């Protein structure tokens, strides 16, 4: 993705000699965005309700798609979505493949070391999905048992959390798209771990799936947008955007649109 971006930038520089003042691209996202009239937003296209690409129509949908569009409007630039995943997140952001990652990124200590997070806009607990016919997993307590297999997507916040929490069950870390679902559906895994937005949307579509919810609070994680550390101006701009959408109701409206109002962060 880098070559096309550079080409585009070169094209802009050539086309607009008046603004051809030499710019150091790295570390000054805002200028680059304004110059390119495009903001690059990293998303995970498998993320139901957040940033999901329907494989049949290739349409993007989800709360962060809507909010990224809002960001683009606020900045007065076009939005360019860049496919990413939790496994690739840190690389994609730090290596400037995108200006910002907007796919409800759980703030985990590991990520916070590498990335700069805005104030959270959502917060979700962890949920488990199993098959309807699974006779062994009736409740949350049945998960962490010898012989149980728990699937998580590589790079997601669930990976370190479950690694930490599971005592008896076997953890299966997967990094192919929809691998978690396949493992559970084929019976190779008993459950996979996900968050509130993913589980809600997923259950609505998969007739074989069943939700196993923790009896109380299990592990709530705040979700935010992540940027490469170091660009204070860009960060401040995005923080302003986050506070704007919270204040003017765009966040809540978008959350309602995707049935996520219950997990909107204050």
């Amino acid at each position: 993705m880098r070559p096309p971006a550079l080409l585009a930038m070169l094209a802009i520089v050539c086309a607009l000699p008046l603004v051809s003042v030499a710019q150091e691209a790295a570390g000054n996202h805002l200028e680059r965005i304004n110059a390119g009239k495009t903001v690059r937003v990293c998303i995970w296209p498998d993320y139901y309700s957040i940033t999901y690409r329907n494989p049949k129509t290739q349409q993007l949908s989800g709360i962060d798609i809507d909010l990224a569009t809002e960001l683009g409007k606020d900045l007065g630039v076009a939005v360019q979505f860049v496919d990413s995943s939790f496994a690739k997140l840190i690389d994609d952001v730090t290596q400037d493949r995108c200006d910002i990652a907007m796919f409800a990124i759980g703030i985990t200590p590991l990520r916070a070391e590498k990335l700069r997070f805005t104030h959270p806009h959502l917060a979700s607990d962890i949920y488990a999905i199993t098959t309807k016919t699974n006779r062994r997993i009736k409740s949350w307590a049945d998960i962490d048992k010898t012989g149980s297999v728990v699937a998580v997507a590589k790079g997601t916040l669930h990976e370190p959390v479950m690694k930490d929490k599971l005592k008896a069950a076997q953890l299966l870390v997967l990094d192919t798209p929809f691998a978690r679902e396949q493992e559970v559906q084929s019976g190779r895994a008993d459950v996979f771990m996900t968050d509130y937005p993913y589980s809600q949307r997923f259950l609505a579509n998969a007739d074989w799936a069943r939700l196993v919810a923790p009896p109380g609070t299990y592990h709530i994680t705040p979700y935010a947008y992540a940027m490469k550390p170091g660009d204070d101006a860009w960060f401040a701009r995005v923080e302003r955007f986050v506070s704007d959408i919270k204040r003017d109701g765009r966040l809540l409206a978008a959350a309602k649109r995707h049935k996520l109002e219950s997990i909107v962060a204050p």
Partner: protein
Amino acid sequence: MTHHAPRLRQAVFVAVALFVSAMLGITVYTLWRLHVAAITNGLEISEMHTRSFEDFLTQSLHASEMAAINTAPSKAETADLHNIGNTFVKNLQHAPQLRSISLLDNRGKIIASSNPANIGVNVATESYLPPTAGQQEILRIGQPWSGRDFADGSPSSDQTPVDTKALSFIPVAKTLIAGERGMMLLFALNPDYFINHISQELGADTGTVEVLRYDGTMLMNTDPDARIGSLHAYVVRDLKLSEVEAGRFEQDFGNGRRELTAYRSSRLYPFVVVTHIHPAYALRKWQTEAKILLAVVIPALLSICLLAVAYYRRQLQIAAQRAEAERLQRINATVFDSSAEGIIITDLNADIISVNPAFTRISGFSQEEVIGHNPRMLSSGQQSKTFYESMWKEILLNGFWQGELVNCHKDGSYYDVHLSISASLDSAGRLQHYIGVTTDVTGRKHTEHELRIAATAFESQEGILVTDADRNILRVNRAFTDITGYPAAEVIGKNPRLLSSGRHEAGFYADMWENLLVNGAWKGEIWNRRKNGEIYPERLTITAVENRNGAVINYVASLSDITLHKAAEEEIKTLAFFDPLTRLPNRRLLLDRLQQALASSSRSAKAGAILFIDLDNFKNLNDTLGHDIGDLLLQQVADRLESCVREGDTVARIGGDEFVVMLEGLSSELIEAASQTEIVGWKIIAALNQPYQLDKYEAHSTPSMGATLFDGRPQIIDDLFKQADIAMYQAKKSGRNTLRFFDPQMQDTLNIRAAVEGDLRKSIERGQFLLYYQIQVDDTRHPLGAEALIRWIHPERGLVSPDQFIPLAEETGLILPIGQWVLESACSQIKEWEKDPLTRDLILAVNVSAKQFHQTDFAARVLGTVQRFGIDPTRLKLELTESMLQDSIEDTIAIMITLKENGVRFSLDDFGTGYSSLQYIKRLPLDQLKIDKSFVRDLSVGSDDKAIVSAIIAMAKSLKLDVIAEGVETEEQRRMLLNKGCSHFQGYLFSKPVPIEQFEAELATTFR
């Protein structure tokens, strides 16, 4: 009706039963049809699911098989086993029905697998079905394994099936023919995928699906309790798979479980899919429909039954009504035929359609002769045209007419009929017929005429009263009401006894009734009482009315008021005994009454008197003003005389201007009687002396009166008359307008009394009274006070003692002014005495008479007088006598207390002569008892009196009263009294009553 009801009931019952049975039959049949349809439908659903699931399973397996085959290496030895594993993993990405794909070498060991953990595991595939027959590339299904994959699983057997909670998978092997050495692909088939898929389609409440291998080994089951791996060979055997690949039937498991089962064997692989649909599910809609149907049908049938019952009852009712109507019709027909009244029924045009036998009897026309004719054929021509017009007008207007008319008999004679014509309407109010009812009233008319005569007779001037045999009044006429005052309504039903005056004795009536019984009639005069209570005489005739058997059924009494008749009789009597002018008794009656009076007098010993009254100079008045005026005077004199005498006395006119007054019941004392007579005499003189208004003249007249007395002694009436006559002439001689008694001595006595009274009256005005004072002393002769005693100083007769005038004064009421004079004089004297220390402490006693004391304002008068003179009331002592205290005790006590509270003292005079009880004396506020002089006088001779005096003194002491003795004349008396404890005295021993000057002089000397 009685034989009709059961038949009707039976018919209704049968009809309802048939209908209900038919309806129930149709309902049951419908339900059965629907049931069959529902079962069939359930089987079809079962079949459909079976086909669908079989297809899905076969397709899935086939797809897996194809994918695996394509990726399988052609030669095991040359294959990169690691790459094969990765290829298997890729294949699995889109095959959730597979848990793993492995490659077995010819020794049954896994040499490559999507799950690296499987590598090295030995899997025995020999028992997989179908069995291998040489090198054929066929898919074979093994016994299910428990566990997730070969790595951690173990095969089950029919003895050790997979635990219901454990994971399981089905090993499926596919032999690959590649070169000489065979290889085998081994799939771990994920049954959960299929069960999930099937469960989406078929809920647990709808049915279950099982997948069996051909040998009956259970591979999958949607029932979570099924034992995977167990053997159900008989099931497969029953399916007869060798004959047909698919089928459906109602399966009975024998333990009460029934299912709608469909089965289908896979077209490629050795398994069969069996679907059981629960009949309950299949019949769910049928049950709802059945309920709805029954909910509609049963109430409908019940309603029909109720309607049938209602209909049955209504029919019974109608039948009963019809029977009743028929019965009434029969009665009507009977009435019609047997009626004594002729009945004519016409149609709307008034043409006769029916007549009854009575009509024929009355009119002479038979039914055949009149039917179809107008009733006017009966017309006699006696009624005018307008009569008929008004008749029809009324019928048309009111639907009814009745009246009387004369009709013509068939034989041409006329007869009176009463005819009523009614318009007969049907139930809708439409005119149907005219019904005429005729009664031959020729006989009745005759009777009416007779009755009218009788009624006229009944309403005669004589009162008529008719009773039944029990003498209860049935009828009275107007004259009866006029005479007795009772309207008919008040007497009917009552006994004539209510008219009884009570003047006749029981025997009178008994005689009357005896007469009636014997003779059948009674006639006589009787006193009866009108309603207003007036008693009147009537002439009464009673006749008993008998029936044919001779029994009395009524009494008829005719009565006439003979009051006037009686009055006439009385008038005649009056003329004989009364003076017609004055209506006073005449000489004859007077003599009669005098005779009676004398007899009465001798019995009662009471005296009577005759007063002869002659009007002075009446002749002159008669001559000057005429006889008429003279008669007027005589009438007025008569009135005045009557007003002067008592009721029992008689005033008579014995001729001309001579009247006689006879008084009866006078005092038995002649003197007293004379006095009474004199009072009446003077009253008469005073009355007759008043002026008379005679027509337009005012006249004066005076009488001269002579009186004589008679008592019980035998006397000759004529002598009495003569005596009175003589006395009257004496009165005339004495100058007329006066009264003279026949007895001269009596005359004198009366004269004196009259003189005394006159003098007494004048003496108050002229101050001829005087008070004398008699001293009262104690045992040391020390003066305590005095008793004031009245004296009359007569200018001619000198000093008159109180005995001689006080009784007269009491009699004439003069005692009151005299008493007041005494009181005032005493008070005046007390006032005088207050000035002198010598007399200051004296108490003056004054006698009070009974009349005085009982004056209503006595207390006020005394106190007023005391106040007027300004004296100390305690100086005044009132002396009362025992006798005057006997009347109205409470009033007496009240008067005394009033005075006593103001300080006035009381002394009881003459004590011991009366009958006062000690109890009574105790209640009186007395200060002193006075022992009567009669006891004192006899003190020295009579021992009784001594005892009385002792008792009086003892009593006075016990009542804490003073006691004083009066009439003490000797020293011996004083001593005796003193010995008995009486220390106060009054009497000649000390001083006689003396004028004030002398009293005061004695006081200053003797009693100093």
